[in-house]
């Protein structure tokens, strides 16, 4: 490990010696600058936003606005296209209701067979209430969305294509260019679930050519309970609000109400202010990191995981066998051992993993499995984590097989 990456790791106080935290795809840890930002807000600026004229209210409102700007900068988009939500799930549900209300029975939405339940169930619910048809892109044997099926799956009734930017199970990164081209050819919008993409470097939304982008704070080294929906301004204008309440209105009368403009229309009630401030601090901190070096280190460690797992008897990797088009998320099945048993035993050796279906049951069904064991890396991962992982895996094999 280089001195630079060691210094990076030291900014995460929870990463004490003896802990190999390999569950960052579920929740990434928070660095000191984010912890400090949240503490500063909660101890010196805490108040509700937009409503008060006292100095704390003004400070909180300003901190919340700054957070929106910092997130926008991380995505290279205007701040007034950033909607703070409760997380990726809330962001996608917002689109399913707001954009979904613009659709008509018989319209079609295209997804894939590897989606997280957060990018599947809201569309199933919309299909049930709105007469919308869901179509699915199939999954290849190495856990990628089969884009060769785009021409046969999209058609004149397709109104939205909604896919995981990075699979939370296989780590496969979708090639967005053919997806966007196919969608635009039929006049469809594109939503990407970026929850597993944003922790691995800034995303240039404009270059992707998409319409919606959703992600969570807690996977982006920020607090739980906050997320983002980015949407083009024209869509924020066109869509009706999802939730009603305070702050999202222009005027309320007993006979009816009118809506605020921009993101405020979709931020009913008191937002997760402190968490959003933390998310802004995370984006600010992330924007200043040496991403080429971090990506190289994440790839090197991922290769170590892949090589070691491929050399382990009984292991089947669910995902691409190489590094091309793959994020540092490595899921596997150990024949004869249940993922929860593997994870429990590895926890006793200080290795934090995730076992189960990872909220992607249809994908595991595609692999004829009930679940898998997942190791996921982040910018603070190092060789000691991988060393401990293989020590723990050896112990799990000794006990269970």
């Amino acid at each position: 490990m280089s001195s630079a990456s060691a210094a990076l790791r030291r900014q995460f106080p929870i990463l004490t010696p003896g802990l190999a935290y390999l569950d960052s795809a579920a929740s990434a840890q928070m660095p000191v600058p984010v912890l400090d930002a949240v503490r500063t807000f909660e101890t010196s600026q805490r108040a509700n936003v937009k409503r008060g004229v006292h100095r704390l209210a003004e400070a909180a409102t300003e901190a919340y606005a700054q957070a929106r700007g910092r997130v926008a900068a991380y995505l290279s988009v205007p701040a007034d296209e950033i909607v703070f939500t409760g997380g990726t799930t809330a962001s996608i549900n917002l689109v399913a209701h707001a954009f979904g209300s613009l659709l008509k029975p018989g319209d079609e939405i295209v997804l894939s067979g590897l989606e997280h339940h957060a990018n599947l169930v809201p569309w199933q619910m919309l299909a049930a209430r709105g007469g919308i048809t869901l179509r699915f892109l199939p999954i290849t044997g190495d856990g990628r969305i089969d884009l060769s099926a785009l021409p046969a799956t999209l058609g004149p009734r397709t109104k939205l294509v909604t896919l995981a930017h990075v699979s939370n199970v296989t780590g496969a990164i979708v090639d967005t260019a053919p997806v966007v081209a196919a969608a635009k050819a039929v006049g469809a919008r594109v939503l990407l679930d970026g929850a597993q993409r944003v922790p691995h470097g800034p995303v240039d939304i404009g270059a992707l050519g998409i319409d919606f982008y959703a992600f969570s704070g807690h996977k982006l080294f920020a607090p739980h309970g906050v997320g983002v929906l980015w949407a083009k301004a024209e869509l924020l204008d066109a869509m009706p609000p999802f939730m009603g309440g305070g702050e999202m209105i222009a005027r309320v009368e007993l006979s009816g109400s009118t809506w605020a403009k921009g993101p405020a229309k979709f931020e009913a009630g008191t937002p997760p202010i402190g968490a959003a401030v933390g998310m802004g601090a995370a984006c600010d901190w992330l924007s200043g990191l040496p991403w080429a070096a971090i990506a190289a280190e994440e790839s090197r460690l991922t290769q170590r995981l892949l090589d070691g797992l491929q050399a382990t008897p009984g292991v089947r990797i669910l995902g691409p066998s190489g590094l091309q088009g793959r994020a540092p998320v490595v899921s596997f099945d150990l024949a004869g051992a249940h993922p929860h048993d593997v994870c429990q035993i590895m926890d006793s050796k200080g290795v934090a993993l995730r076992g189960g279906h990872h909220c992607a049951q249809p994908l595991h069904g595609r692999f004829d499995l009930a679940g898998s064991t997942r190791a996921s890396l982040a910018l603070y991962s190092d060789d000691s984590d991988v060393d401990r992982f293989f020590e723990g895996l050896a112990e799990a094999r000794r006990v269970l097989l």
Partner: protein
Amino acid sequence: MSDALYHEAILARAKDTAREGRIDGATRTATLDNPLCGDRVTLDFALSGERIDKVRHFVRGCALCRASAATLAASLEGAGRGALAANAGKLDAALAGATDDPVWQVFAPVGRHKSRHDCVRLPLAAARAALADAG
């Protein structure tokens, strides 16, 4: 008994296949899932009135779940339907660290791991569902 979660006795129960499988023409059957992990347990019963003549379990789940299913099946076969509640009570006591029951105390180490309680309780829930309206 060992304090380790995966001690020898519990692993032996997990590998006990004596009552693994299905019953053709089962009197009662139920399949339950654990929605958190996707595990699935099927319990089949052949009943003669109040008596449980035969039990078979079919588990797609972890070692703890398989051990619980095997233990339950062995405990219920040949017993009356009322034995289910008694065994559930023994498992609860084991998880609370308050039993010396020779059959169920092997699950005592699971008590410290609340996230795994549902693993060992799933077979009993399936049995309860299967036998709910029997009689």
